[in-house]
C-alpha cells in the first residue's frame, strides 16, 4: 500500500511538470492552431540556462529561476518573429509553421549543444536544500513540494490572466477569431507574440523543474517530453488549458502506475502512446474538447 501511495505521490509531482510543459504547448495551439515542435527545445534551453546561471554565474536558484524563465520567454519571441510571423499569411500556414518550428527546434538544440556542451550535467549539490519528510511511510522531499508549489502558482496565475486580465481576454479573442479581434482594435501580432512569450516561459520553467527533479540536464533532454507533451495535450484536448493540466497529471500517474503494476519501466512509454493512439481514434477532440481556451 505504501509503495502504491509513494508511486501516486511521485506521479503527482512528475505529472505537475508535464502539465506545466503541456500548458505552454497547448496555449500556442489554442491561439494559432499551430503545433510548435520547438517547445521542447525551449524547455531544454530554459533548464540549461538556469544551470549555467547557478553554476557559472554563482546565482542562487531563487534568482536563476526567474531569469532563466525570462530567457525562455525571450526565446519564444524569437520563435515567433523568425519562424511563425513570416508564414502567417500563407494559405498553408499550419503546415509550414509546423515545419519551421521543427527547423527552429533543430537550431535551438544545436545551440544548446554548442554552448552548453553535449554532455549530461546536473545542478551542484545543495542547490535546493535536501529536506525529507515521511508521512505514514510515504517520502516527500522539500524539492517536490517546491516543484508542486511552483507549478500550482504558475497555473493559477495563467488561468487568472486568461480569465480576468485585459491581455488574457485579448488572447482569447485572437484565439476565437483573428479578423474580428483585429477589427475590435486588438493588436493581433502583439498578442500572438505575447502568447509565444508566455508559452515559452512556461516551457522553460518546466525544463528547470524537470532538471532539478531528475537531477540531469542535457541538450537532448527535451526529446522524450516533446512526444509526451503531445500525448498530454491530445489527451486533454488540443488548445485546452485545463485539459492540459488534467492530461499532465493523468499522464504522470499513468506512467508511475504502469511501472508499479508491470514491475518494469520498459512499458511506461508504451502505455502512454497506446493511450494517445486510442484517443486519436475514439475522440480526437480529447477529454475536454476544443475551444476551452476561449472560454478559459
Amino acid at each position, binding site marked *: 500500500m505504501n509503495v502504491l501511495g509513494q508511486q501516486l505521490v511521485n506521479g503527482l509531482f512528475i505529472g505537475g511538470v508535464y502539465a506545466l510543459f503541456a500548458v505552454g504547448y497547448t496555449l500556442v495551439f489554442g491561439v494559432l492552431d499551430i*503545433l510548435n515542435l520547438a517547445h521542447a527545445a525551449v524547455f531544454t534551453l530554459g533548464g540549461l540556462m538556469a544551470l549555467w546561471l547557478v553554476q557559472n554565474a554563482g546565482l542562487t536558484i531563487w534568482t536563476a529561476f526567474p531569469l532563466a524563465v525570462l530567457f525562455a520567454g525571450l526565446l519564444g519571441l524569437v520563435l515567433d518573429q*523568425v*519562424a511563425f510571423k*513570416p*508564414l502567417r499569411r*500563407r494559405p*498553408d500556414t*499550419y*503546415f*509550414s509553421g*509546423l*515545419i*519551421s518550428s*521543427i*527547423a*527552429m*527546434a*533543430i*537550431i535551438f*538544440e*544545436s*545551440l544548446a*549543444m*554548442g554552448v552548453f556542451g*553535449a554532455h549530461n550535467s546536473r545542478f551542484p549539490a545543495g542547490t535546493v536544500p535536501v529536506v525529507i519528510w515521511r508521512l505514514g511511510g510515504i517520502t516527500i522531499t522539500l524539492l517536490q513540494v517546491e516543484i508542486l508549489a511552483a507549478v500550482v502558482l504558475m497555473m493559477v496565475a495563467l488561468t487568472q490572466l486568461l480569465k480576468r486580465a485585459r491581455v488574457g481576454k485579448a488572447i482569447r479573442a485572437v484565439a476565437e477569431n483573428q479578423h474580428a479581434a483585429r477589427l475590435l482594435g486588438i493588436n493581433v501580432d502583439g498578442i500572438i507574440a505575447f502568447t509565444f512569450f508566455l508559452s515559452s516561459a512556461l516551457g522553460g520553467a518546466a525544463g528547470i523543474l524537470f532538471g532539478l527533479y531528475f537531477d540531469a540536464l542535457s541538450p537532448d533532454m527535451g*526529446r522524450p517530453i*516533446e*512526444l509526451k507533451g*503531445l*500525448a498530454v495535450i*491530445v489527451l486533454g484536448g488540443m488548445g485546452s488549458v485545463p485539459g492540459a493540466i488534467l492530461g499532465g497529471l493523468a499522464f504522470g500517474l499513468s506512467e508511475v502506475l504502469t511501472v508499479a503494476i508491470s514491475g518494469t519501466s*520498459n*512499458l511506461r*512509454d*508504451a502505455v502512454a*502512446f*497506446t493511450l*494517445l*493512439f486510442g484517443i*486519436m*481514434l475514439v475522440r*480526437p477532440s480529447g477529454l475536454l474538447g476544443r475551444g476551452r481556451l476561449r472560454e478559459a
Partner: protein
Amino acid sequence: MDALIQFWAVYGSLLNFMGINCLLGLSLYVTFSAGLLSLGNAAFYGIGGYTAGILTTHFGAPFPLALVAGTLMAGLAALLLGLPVLRLKGVFLAMATLAFGEVVRIAALNLKVTGGAEGLINIPVITQTWMIYLALAGAAYFLARLHRTRLGWAFQSIREDETAAAAMGVNLTLTKTLAFVIGALLAGLAGGLYAHLNFLITPGEFGFATAVNLLIFNIVGGTRAWYGPLLGAALLTALPEVLRGLGVTAGPIRLFVNGLILLLVILFLPKGLMALFQRRPAPAKG
C-alpha cells in the same frame, strides 16, 4: 581505376545511405502527394527492416523472399492502420501516425524476437549498392508514371481540395488508403534493404527523428514531383561529408546547418529546392 576503388572505399557506404534515404523520401512523397501528413513512415521502414531481418537471421529465409515479406508486412500494417486513422486530418493524422510509430519502436525495444534495445544482430550482409539503386530507379519510374494516371490525378485532387475531389467522384477512403499503403510498401522495401546492409538494426533508427528526417527530405527537395525528395534526401545525406570536407567536424554545427537549411527553404522556397531548377510554370494543358 585505382582512383575509382579509392572513391568507392571512402564513399561507398555514403552512396548506400543516400540510396536508402532517397527511397524513404519517395515513400513519404507518395503519402504526401495525396495530402496526407504522415509521421508513420519511419515505423513502416522499421517493420520492413525487422520482418526481413528476422526472416533471414532466425529462419534462414532467402533474401529476395525476406525482402518481399518485409515490404508486404509494412503494406499490411499501413492497411490496418490506415482504415481507422485516415479519417483524421492534418496535424491530427500526423499525431496519430506518430503515436503508432512510437508504439512500434517501443515494441521493437521490448520484444525478444527483435533483440530488444541491443537490436537485431548477425543479420547477413547481402544488400549491394546496385540493388538499392535498382529499387530506387524502379520506384522513381513507377511514381513518375503514376503521376499521369487516374490514381495520380486522384491523389493530387485530394491534396488540393478534398471536398471538391469527393464531389468529382474520387473515392476518398480508397484513394487515401492506397497512397498510404504504397508509401508504406516503399518504406518497407527500404527497411529490408537497409537491414541487410549493416549487420544490425536497432529500434532507435526507426523513431521520431527518422520520421522527421523523411519530412525534411521532402520539404527541402520539394513535393511537386518525384525528383524533389530525391534531391532533398541526396543533398542532406551528403551534407555531413561536404561539411567534413570543409573542415567542419563538430556535431552542433552540422545540426545547425541542417536546421538552417530547413528554415531557409520553408521561409523563402516553399516549393523546395526543386523550384530552383524549374524555369517557370508550364502553361496548363487542356
